[in-house]
């Protein structure tokens, strides 16, 4: 699925698939693979946290509820903590590309301020995360001006994607036709098999690394590839069966229902439990809003690029005091209009990847799946 035809993204899409090769990597060799990457990159890998009991969802499915976090490979003492994450990690991938708070002063991006001198590599990136990265690319690399801090990190980064062998209760990527496995947008892709991994090598950068690891890689057999295809298909089936229960409207109707739901009561109703914590916007992997703030530090004046969120009261307030989004329900509605109207108009796709992070983080139990379902029903199934 290629979303972009415009130039800014071309560098990201150049050599994908053209020379994709798939290898088999034994379980015990994954650390060798990671160590090799860590030589050249600052590698982040998923670790499992808090293995809670499996969760019985409201529709009776027994689903996993463990979480995964990204941690710097070099700083993990017990390498056995490194996990193959079965679904997306807790933190949004964008955190590693657009820091929540970053000094953007100076005539030109200062590599010393960029954190680690080695370029970034991230393992455990799921297809929902890759979808979100495209939204971030659209914002920070698109338009007339490019964010040089984002660009420096993004262009040099190595993305190690991975199939999802399971999904969480909150996952709903397939509602928007996003598959729980990736076929493009990565350098490497890992698919867990019973006795190891299939490793897709997609880019020149990745081929360079794979060439130096020939001793632990063997070309994937037809049987292994068929096995992966089967696993992928089975997971999609299971996920779809779960999503049917949630009745989430499809991608094609999103713009329509959000626009025509402008005066729906769902906004006010759902915002009753909102405590304006901003969790949903900061955990969101497609949200991108920020504020340029000026502060004085010991070294002198500083410009900071700080994440901002449209659920906050002062997001649209102007100096005179006027605020177009003064009520909380207006801000919730604004968020949906931005994601499902504005982005579909300007980028051609919704700014939501179905990762469900906002559902899990919300202390008010505000559920995007429910709101979309309500909007759909109000538009298409109302009595009149």
């Amino acid at each position: 699925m290629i979303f972009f035809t415009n130039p800014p993204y071309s560098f990201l899409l150049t050599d994908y698939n053209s020379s994709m090769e798939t290898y088999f990597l034994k379980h015990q060799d994954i650390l060798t693979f990671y160590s090799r990457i860590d030589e050249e990159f600052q590698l982040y890998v998923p670790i499992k946290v808090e293995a809670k009991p499996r969760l019985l969802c409201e529709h009776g499915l027994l689903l996993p509820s463990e979480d995964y976090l990204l941690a710097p490979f070099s700083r993990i003492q017990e390498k056995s903590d490194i996990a193959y994450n079965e679904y997306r990690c807790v933190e949004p991938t964008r955190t590693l590309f657009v820091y929540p708070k970053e000094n953007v002063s100076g005539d030109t991006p200062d590599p010393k301020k960029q954190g680690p001198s080695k370029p970034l590599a991230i393992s455990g990136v799921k297809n929902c995360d890759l979808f979100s990265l495209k939204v971030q690319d659209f914002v920070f690399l698109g338009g007339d001006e490019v964010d040089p801090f984002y660009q420096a990190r993004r262009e040099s980064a190595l993305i190690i994607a991975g199939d999802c062998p399971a999904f969480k209760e909150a996952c709903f990527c397939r509602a928007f036709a996003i598959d729980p496995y990736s076929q493009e947008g990565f350098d490497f892709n890992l698919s867990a098999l019973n006795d190891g991994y299939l490793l897709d090598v997609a880019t020149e950068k990745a081929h360079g690394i794979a060439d130096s690891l020939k001793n632990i890689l063997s070309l994937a057999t037809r049987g292994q590839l068929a096995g992966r295809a089967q696993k992928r298909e089975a997971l999609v089936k299971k996920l779809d069966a779960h999503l049917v229960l949630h009745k989430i409207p499809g991608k094609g109707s999103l713009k329509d229902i959000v626009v025509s739901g402008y005066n729906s009561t769902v906004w006010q109703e759902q915002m009753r439990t909102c405590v304006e914590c901003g969790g949903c916007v900061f955990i969101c992997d497609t949200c991108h809003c920020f504020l340029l703030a000026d502060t004085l530090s010991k070294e002198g004046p500083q410009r900071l690029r700080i994440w901002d969120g449209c659920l906050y009261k002062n997001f649209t307030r102007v100096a005179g005091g006027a605020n177009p989004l003064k009520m909380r329900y207006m801000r919730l509605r604004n968020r949906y209009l931005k994601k499902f109207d504005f982005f579909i108009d300007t980028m051609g796709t919704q700014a939501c990847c179905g990762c469900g992070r906002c559902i899990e983080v919300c202390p008010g139990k505000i559920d995007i799946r429910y709101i979309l379902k309500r909007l759909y029903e109000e538009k298409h199934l109302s009595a009149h």
Partner: protein
Amino acid sequence: MKKNIYQPIEAVIEDVRQETASIKTFALRPKSLFSFCTGQFIELNIPGVGEAPFTPSSDPGVKDRLEVTIMNVGNMTSRLHAMHSGETVALRGPYGKGYPLESFKGKDILIVGGGVGLAPLRSLLFSLFGEIDHYNKIVLRYGARTSADMVYKDLLPEWAKKKKVDVMTTVDIGDPQWKGNVGLVTTILKDLPVELHRAVAVVCGPPIMMKFVNLKLLDLGFTHENIYLSMEKNMSCGLGKCGHCRLGRYYVCKDGPVFTYEQLKDLHDIWD
């Protein structure tokens, strides 16, 4: 070397003029090359303090200096109002799309300003005056709350004397010294010396003023395409990235700040 799009260039305050009790015009000399088109805005920065968007009020034809007319309403502007000639600020830009002068050519141009909203229009007027032969007529209608709240008091009579230029002013609340019209700016939008078929209207002022002026103009028969509105939002980056100034499918910072009513008419709550 990649350009840091967030980094402003330094500018020295050369002159500060008091326009009203709460409005000052700052003349700035940027330390490096800077130019703008009329109607485009800049981000004016006080290093270490803050940044806010303003539309220059000066003639874009003057290349080494620009003026910004600013009302003291918030943190950044109150700090700015406390600054003097010789002090250094910084600026970024210019951003957005300005007034489409090319499509104004040969037209009767009605310019309606409210309060400090005359600032960007002053820049527009200078641009129009600079090539007055290209335009048929310029009609300025300006309203302020009281006569003390009027900006450019010295310039208004000068402009009125110009060939092809017709100026009328009004105040919402009269006073013994004020000899002109009393009433909202819509009260001086009657019997306009413009030919509708070749007229465009440019409006800038507080949202509530723009809302009613827009209604009045539609009433008078101006087409949606011929009404140009300056939208006010809290632009932070100016580059269409930070998300603050979204208005429907637009970002005011890059698709505006000047829009035709045609572009905005189907959007919700544009005057809020």
